[in-house]
């Protein structure tokens, strides 16, 4: 009897293996911060799209957002931002990251972000995010420590004074498991 139970349990093991899951980005707020001696500027976008796939215990995610979806409340400044970031030539910002599926249940997650922006590809290693889980929705918040020099952007100037190199991007995303 014990042998039969052991055989049945062995045969059932694949059922307990991590099932493939898919994730969709339900909502997002991305905010970039630019600092100048005369200005503190924020540009906000709610237009990101994203998808994630988990297979064999590993998950891959892709998030995409257009450069021109960011709005700072000043159309002249937004057009200038579009120009210096080559947003007409490279209209889409993509972020790819990889997580072990086990990380999806943790309060704090760290991952490497591979970002395509302004014609450059930059990897930010071990960026930390906070995670809040409500049912099948996961809210992820954190800050990407982006800089102007990383993406080889010519820093805009006002009155011949350039902006600061740091352009951190605050991330607030809600992912839903399908």
């Amino acid at each position, binding site marked *: 009897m014990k042998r039969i139970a052991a055989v049945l349990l062995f045969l059932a093991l694949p059922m307990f293996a991590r099932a493939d899951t898919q994730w969709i980005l339900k909502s997002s707020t991305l905010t970039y911060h630019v600092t100048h001696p005369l200005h503190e500027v924020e540009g*906000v976008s709610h*237009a990101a*799209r994203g998808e994630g796939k988990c297979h064999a215990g590993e998950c891959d995610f892709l998030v995409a957002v257009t450069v021109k979806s960011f*709005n700072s409340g*000043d159309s002249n400044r937004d*057009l200038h931002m579009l120009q210096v970031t080559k947003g*007409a*030539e490279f209209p889409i910002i993509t972020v790819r990251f990889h997580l072990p599926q086990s990380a999806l249940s943790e309060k704090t997650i760290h991952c490497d972000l591979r970002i395509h922006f302004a014609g450059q590809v930059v990897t930010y290693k071990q960026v930390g995010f906070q995670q809040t889980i409500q049912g099948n929705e996961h809210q992820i918040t954190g800050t990407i420590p982006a800089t102007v020099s990383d993406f080889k952007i010519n820093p805009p100037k006002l009155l011949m004074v350039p902006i600061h190199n740091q352009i951190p991007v605050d991330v607030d995303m809600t992912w839903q498991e399908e």
Partner: protein
Amino acid sequence: MNPDRRIASFWLSAVCFLVFLTSFTAHAQATAGVSGKVTGPSGKAIASAQVAIKNLATLESTNTRTDSAGVYSESNLMPGDYQITVSAEGFDSESASVSLVAGAAQAKNFTLTPTLTLAQLGISPQQAEGSPQEQARLNKRSHMLQIHQRLGLITTIPLIATVVTGAFSGGKPAVTSSTTRDLHAALGATTAGLYFATAYYAIFAPKIPGTKAEGPIRFHKALAWIHGPGMILTPILGAMAFSQRASGERVHGIAKLHGQVAIITAAAYGLAILSVTLHSGPGSHAAHAFLNLFRHKRSISVHAAFDGVPAQTGVR
């Protein structure tokens, strides 16, 4: 030389040459090769894909990359069983086993599956593809507006000097000197010249279709309707006043408005500069009150951002 020896020497050379030639072919027949093409799901070639060819007996790996046509090729491999693994950024890796036979070149093609693609997010290739022409237009616009900004700042110098000398250019003929009036007139002419050069770069900077003015720039543009006509009227009234004074008359009639018009013009010009310079910090509260009259409420929609593409596919 003895003819017999000559003939023997010839045949000996021929045999040596044949032996030499045969040694190459023998070596070639002892090795094997593999080649193939790596493509994506649409058949498009994948350049610079990494190809690892691993001998399953010796566990030695030979690494190569696909060329611009997506083709890889490796020869001089020992015959035997191999595992070929192909990987490229944005694609799932693929592996296949091949058996290489001496003297033959095996063909093995791969089709890689994209890991996650923009198309899956509802972003078409046309949307993802940029426009160098549009970028060039933006670059020209920014360049011209930079010149506009710098000329505008430079113009403030003779403008301020004109206003200051203006205080000593009017009044009774006995009080003010003609030299001061001449200086005031010259500074005014310089100011006007720089002003219209500044305006040129703003007016003729390329417009970007589909964008609506929003924020402080609206106030900046609105003020141009004050200082623009003012900068035309002020020199005209100034010339009339200058002529009257040169004739020994007191300034009268419409020419008397020269000073007031000049002050309003200069004030509007100064506000226009401040409106696009100071957005935060002390001393900007008055400007903020004016600016709030022109600010639009922000409203971002996915549809607007992706130019009318339907809502993200895959949302259930």
